[in-house]
């Protein structure tokens, strides 16, 4: 592949479809992640709207029970694996190398591989919506239908004979490979590619939280991979890993799934916590209150996230000792989380506050996450959890944490970093409209669910009787869901309009303290004309001991080597869904085609000249 060398004059970035297909530039991969994940976010959102329309009134008949099962399964799976995680990944990709003063990630081609595997895995999973005719199914759709946590033994061939669960278990295995590859890449990038003087305790908080997240990913994903491999063997090769009659226990699935599933909750929330910890100081013009404490709490959450999984299983009846231990660890993990909340509030306290849209979302995050956190502590007690489990109360909790928390945090990041990524400032008035519509919408949608749940409405049931008396509350919830949809349209309109007419962003539109604000928006392909030397945790701010650092020169004083693109990460990635087609279609030779494609891609990748 070609070796582009940017000369003294910054070269225009290569254009055309080919340059995007072969790109290894972390900024382009970040944008690809962003738009792909946002597309899946819209698909997951549409699924949610259909669910809410169905539930708007008692005895709804928009969809039947089976379609409803597919909708809530795909809504959960899509939002967690195809929207929230990769939206976080888009910021890891775009922002982390800029924050640590690097030219790219440690393994640019592995990074491209992660993206292509994610895209193909997401398409594979969603293909189940229209793949029915291929399997001679009575419906168009053979989408997964056993809930996003796919409890055994409901997922066994005996109870789920169609290809629905096959799509789910194969798609998730593919997506796991993407996350694992990105995990190794970002751990090495953050530890090894820091600019001179960027000590670990000078890393921006977002970078720190990303590092903790990546360690959680590389340790949690192997566990779900094993759980999915067992399920695959049960369904395709007749093993008995989750079959009671053979002496096995379906509980094994629950343990393995939640051993992954609870760290996964922190994989979703820690990046948002990192974003908020960047946005609040910038718009309060104050350093983050207690930076080391925020970092250590993040690390502590990473460790403690491994010790609470059985609180998802109180209803199983694990016995008083196990229940007490997991109740205690669950209450304990609220402590480092609470510490962070106090740190964020203290950062705002007495600050020179500018009420930008990004700050609105960051403060919204704190408020909503507190509500979600408090309802979470109520599940920590087994007796109350037994009242709440499998009701809408749990749905309310997860949406306050993942929508009020993660999505709010991600939108704070979008309004904060979009000028850096696109070179255009987003409209603040439209941004405020977006925020207030979304904020009101989400509270209308999810707050009534606490009552709906405590009044006895179970989750994952496609309709309810008018005698239950939750019809009005459900209608409110549905109105809220549509308000959220309107707010997302406002956001897309904002991006589209400012992309054409918006004012150009300077290097540093917000007066940020971190390195990404010292270079042009959008950054040149080589990021930094000269790799900066860092002498302070807030390099661009004047502190008691340090003046602000000088920005790198606009024109590189010496030619900068920029790696060319490569086709092979995509070719290798293509091998995985092809391999997954083999069990789906029960054709053995397909697996060899896929494996050959994967091997061919890896060998070409290994032996092509490619200098980082």
């Amino acid at each position, binding site marked *: 592949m070609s070796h582009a060398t940017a000369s003294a004059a910054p070269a225009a970035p290569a254009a055309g479809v080919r340059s995007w297909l072969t790109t290894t530039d972390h900024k382009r991969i970040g944008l690809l992640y962003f738009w792909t994940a946002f597309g899946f976010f819209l698909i997951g959102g549409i699924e949610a709207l259909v669910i809410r329309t169905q539930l708007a009134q008692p005895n709804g008949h928009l969809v039947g029970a089976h379609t409803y099962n597919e909708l809530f399964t795909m809504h959960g799976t899509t939002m967690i694996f195809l929207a929230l995680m990769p939206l976080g990944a888009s910021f890891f990709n775009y922002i982390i190398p800029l924050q640590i003063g690097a030219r790219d990630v440690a393994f640019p081609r592995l990074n491209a591989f992660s993206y292509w595997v994610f895209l193909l895995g997401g398409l594979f999973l969603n293909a189940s919506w229209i793949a029915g005719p291929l399997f001679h199914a009575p419906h168009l759709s053979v989408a997964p239908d056993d809930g996003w946590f796919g409890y055994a033994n409901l997922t066994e061939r005996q109870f789920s004979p169609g290809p629905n669960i096959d799509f789910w278990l194969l798609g998730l295995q593919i997506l796991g490979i993407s996350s694992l590859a990105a995990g190794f890449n970002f751990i*090495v990038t953050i530890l090894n*590619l*820091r600019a001179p003087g960027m000590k670990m305790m000078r890393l921006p908080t977002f970078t720190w939280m990303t590092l903790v997240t990546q360690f959680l990913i590389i340790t949690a994903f192997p*566990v779900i991979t094993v759980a999915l491999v*067992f399920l695959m063997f049960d369904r395709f090769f007749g*093993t008995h890993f989750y079959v009671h009659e053979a002496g096995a226990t379906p509980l094994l699935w629950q343990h393995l799934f939640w051993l992954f599933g609870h760290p996964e909750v922190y994989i979703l929330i820690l990046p948002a916590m990192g974003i908020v910890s960047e946005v609040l100081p910038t718009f309060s013009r104050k350093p983050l209150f207690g930076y080391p404490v925020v970092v250590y709490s993040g690390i502590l959450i990473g460790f403690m996230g491994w010790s609470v999984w059985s609180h998802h299983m109180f209803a199983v009846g694990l016995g008083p000792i196990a229940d007490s231990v997991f109740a205690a660890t669950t209450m304990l993990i609220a402590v480092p989380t609470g510490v962070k909340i106090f740190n964020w509030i203290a950062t705002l306290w007495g600050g020179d506050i500018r009420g930008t849209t990004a700050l609105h979302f960051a403060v919204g995050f704190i408020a909503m996450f507190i509500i979600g956190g408090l309802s979470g502590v109520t599940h920590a007690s087994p007796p109350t959890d037994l009242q709440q489990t499998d009701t809408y109360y749990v749905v309310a909790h997860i949406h306050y944490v993942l929508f009020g928390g993660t999505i709010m945090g991600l939108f704070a990041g979008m309004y904060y970093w979009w000028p850096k990524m696109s070179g255009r400032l987003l409209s603040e008035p439209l941004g405020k409209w977006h925020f207030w519509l979304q904020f009101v919408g989400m509270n209308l949608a999810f707050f009534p669910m606490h009552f709906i749940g405590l009044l006895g409405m179970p989750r994952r049931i496609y309709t309810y009787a008018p005698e239950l008396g939750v019809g009005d509350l459900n209608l409110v919830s549905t109105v809220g869901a549509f308000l959220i949809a309107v707010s997302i349209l406002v956001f897309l309109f904002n991006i589209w309009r400012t992309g054409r007419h918006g004012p150009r962003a300077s290097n540093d539109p917000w007066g940020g303290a971190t390195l990404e604000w010292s270079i042009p928006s959008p950054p040149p392909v080589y990021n930094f004309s000269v790799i900066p030397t860092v002498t302070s945790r807030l390099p661009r701010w004047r502190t008691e001991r340090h003046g602000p650092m000088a920005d790198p020169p606009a024109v590189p004083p010496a030619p900068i080597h920029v790696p060319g693109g490569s086709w092979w990460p995509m070719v290798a990635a293509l091998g995985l869904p092809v391999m997954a087609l083999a069990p789906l279609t029960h054709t053995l030779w397909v697996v060899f085609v896929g494996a050959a494609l994967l091997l061919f891609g890896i060998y070409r990748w290994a032996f092509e000249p490619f200098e980082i």
Partner: protein
Amino acid sequence: MTHAAPAAPAVVAHHTSMGLDSRKMAFWAFIGSECLLFGSLISTYLIYKGKSVVGPYPHEILNIPFTSVSTFDLLMSSLMMVLALAAVQRGDMKWGKIWLFSTALLGMVFIGGQVIEFTEFVHKGLTLQTNLFGCTFFVLTGTHGAHVTVGVLWLLTLWVRALQGKLGPANAMTVEITGLYWHFVDVVWIVIFTVVYLIQ
């Protein structure tokens, strides 16, 4: 995780914040991740130990003397790997080639042993579907065997590169990383051998 062309040691010379080669660090992270993979598999084996409702049971079928020989074979392959790395590092490519091939050969002997073992078990009535012992035993040892197979392919690739004269001391890091993988797979086998075969 793959290695650059021999003529481009630029990657090795790259400055890193921790002073550790990036590929090596990534590989340590990968090994950490693999520990959780095998940890889950071994835990499942232990959880389901003694839970099979029909035979054959482990004590009726496991052939400890036979597997001790393959374990010894795999241990010796780790020794060959150490010698291969030492030879490549000092630029002795003649012995480098010999030791690389010996490592791969012992790996293939191990795989051969596993094929013989699996075939014999199937003849004695233990398949994937027979009972929980069959499920957990074949998936655990099969996953390990797949790892050995990948390692053999990797070693043979390096050996072919060495025959072509494209592998030299400049690629010592690549050989070192291959060695990390190989030793890890070997250590995992020691655990499996102990847990599955020795402690019945």
